[in-house]
């Protein structure tokens, strides 16, 4: 297990070092059994929203978690943020286990005691992250609906200053204003002064999204989880927001985990792509590799049907039949086999193993082979 990282968040570091490590994460939502069901003690069914996810996000990396509805990607985001509690598996942030931070942000006693025993290893500038509140200072989230993520009655200033107030970091009003101005400028809203006193209904979708990003940046996090950050914006302004996220990575070393259903967007600015289907990651690898040589038939199908603005390109489209099945009654063996164009008999019997087919490029498929 890696040692707690002592770098303060204001020092950006690129490249190596695992920032976020997820192993076997599961989250199930039990379905109510009803009166008769409870009486007859029928086993409770559950929606297996995420069923064993593992991935690593490097420091300074931008990774996309791609999938259609029902695949579990938003549940993953909420669980990573601590807004939902994981049922199984671990989440490690900077090497520390943050999976089960208590509801009130108190870490279990034993862990605190253990940390205290190790305290001599800590630098004075070490930022303890073992409380949920502490974690939230370093991991922030950008939500998908810019029309809904802002309180309609709050001014931009109030919204962006809120994180500072919540964490007790508010100084004098002048200091607050200064920090809010900086955050707005970092999010590309210039001149910041113009925006401070506006309410959400006076802003466009793109501006609102920037306000949300400014609010996320003001705590100087090192990881941003962006849930469909541009899906609800006009196409012609999406690039601005994506470029902003890219810039934040380059200039400030903020890592980004981007959740999206749009492979095209994901392909544009991410370093790694992980494709999800029915609660599992079916393929994960460097963006270029996944696009050029998709290993999993689901990824191949997705890539083949995504519309491309080029009418001269005639591709063979692998349109899958049917819809994503109900996550309550999962297919046997490989979850994708009922819709898979290349499914064989053994695919219905055994769950495929997660394996590395080419360096850095993993998949879970019985039939996948390395290209070339």
């Amino acid at each position: 297990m890696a040692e707690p990282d002592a770098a303060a968040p204001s020092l950006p570091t690129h490249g190596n070092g695992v920032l976020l490590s997820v192993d076997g994460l599961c989250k199930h939502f039990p379905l109510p059994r009803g009166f008769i069901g409870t009486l007859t003690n029928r086993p409770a069914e559950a929606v297996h929203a995420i069923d064993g996810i593992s991935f690593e996000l490097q420091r300074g990396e931008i990774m996309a978690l791609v999938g259609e509805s029902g695949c579990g990607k938003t549940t993953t985001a909420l669980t990573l943020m601590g807004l939902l509690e994981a049922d199984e598996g671990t989440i490690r942030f900077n090497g520390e286990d943050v999976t089960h931070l208590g509801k009130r942000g108190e870490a279990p006693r034993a862990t605190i005691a253990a940390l205290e025993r190790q305290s001599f290893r800590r630098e004075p500038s070490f930022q303890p992250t073992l409380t949920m509140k502490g974690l939230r200072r370093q991991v922030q989230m950008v939500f998908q609906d810019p029309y809904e993520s802002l309180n309609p009655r709050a001014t931009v200033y109030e919204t962006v200053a809120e994180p500072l107030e919540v964490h007790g970091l508010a100084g004098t009003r002048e200091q607050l204003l200064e920090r809010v101005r900086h955050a707005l400028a970092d999010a590309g809203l210039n001149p910041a002064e113009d925006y401070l006193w506006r309410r959400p209904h006076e802003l466009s979708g793109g501006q609102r999204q920037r306000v949300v990003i400014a609010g996320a940046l003001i705590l100087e996090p090192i990881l941003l989880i962006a849930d469909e950050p541009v899906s609800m914006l006009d196409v012609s302004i999406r690039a601005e927001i994506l470029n902003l996220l890219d810039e934040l990575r380059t200039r400030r070393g903020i890592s980004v985990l981007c959740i999206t259903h749009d492979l095209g967007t994901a392909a544009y600015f991410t370093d790694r792509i992980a494709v999800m289907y029915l609660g599992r990651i079916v393929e994960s690898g460097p963006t270029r590799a996944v696009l050029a040589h998709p290993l999993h038939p689901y990824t191949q199908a997705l890539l083949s049907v995504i519309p491309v603005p080029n009418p001269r390109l005639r591709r063979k489209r692998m349109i899958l039949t049917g819809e994503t099945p109900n996550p309550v009654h999962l297919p046997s063996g490989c979850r994708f086999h009922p819709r898979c164009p290349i499914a064989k008999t053994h695919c219905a019997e055994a769950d495929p193993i997660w394996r590395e087919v080419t360096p850095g490029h993993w998949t879970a498929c019985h039939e996948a082979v390395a290209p070339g």
Partner: protein
Amino acid sequence: MTERPTNPPLLDVRNLSTHFVTSEGVFRAVEGLSFRLERGESLGLVGESGCGKSTAMLSLLRLLPAAGRIVSGQALLDGTDLFGIDESDMRAIRWHRISMIFQGAMNAFNPVRTVGDQIAEALVFHGLARDLGEAEPRVAELLEMVGISGSRRSQFPHQYSGGMRQRAMIAMALACNPQVVIADEPTTALDVMIQAQILELLERLQRELGLAVILVTHDLSVVAEICHRVLVMYGGVLAESCEVDGIFNQPMHPYTRRLLGAFPDLSRPEGKLVSIPGYPPRLNALPPGCRFAPRCTEVHERCRQEQPKPREVLPGHWVACHLHDAGAANGRT
């Protein structure tokens, strides 16, 4: 497909203008829109939010909200001017000859009636059957055409998935065998795979039934997949219109060019995505000249003063831009 049609088009819209009269002024949602739709042709109507594309389509069907007024123009459907007839005649045409697949199919269904009943009702209302029972065979036929199994006829909308509701919406629109179908953002809010299924369905239906389709969308990539011609709107007016190949490989209007650059192209992943700075114009406070002038990178003085008219710059390729006025090189009109 590349030949000029010699017989009159199925739908000929000339100079359509629609305004909304509100307490905040007059919103000139559509101005001077003209286009033609041939039999069996698929036209993509592309534009972003607030560009007037949905308003234009609702105008054709005369289903505008109370504040909307068609202030000028003609819409000749096989010779009949849709704006010149009165409401009772329009009712005979609406759905029988031209119908619409509404955006947000999820919300277009009555939640307390079965899907089959609602389609049957449409048939009875339009005189194709005397009662719900008589409508049954056609309901089954329609559902099968769109790929919904007949047994699902007695289910309620909430029991259908999003993709299935969209299919049911398509079935409803085809109930009276129209000549023209307007599909308003049929694949927005759907997963990529379902989107592909729906587009394939629309393509197949168009071929088999000889439909003329107007596909209204903000997604240029979708248009590239299944449309013959494309019409790009901006700020309520036509910006560019031509065959689909021309839009993508020879775009002339500055807006079209930049819009193309905003869509990720998976076949060319190294390309940079562009955005268009600024915001679409407020339709009750329009600039005097070209509506795109405030955001255009190639703007001239003339653009700010005079609104460009659509001109046929190449055969079948119309552009509304001063940069492409034949003989306008020196600012001559």
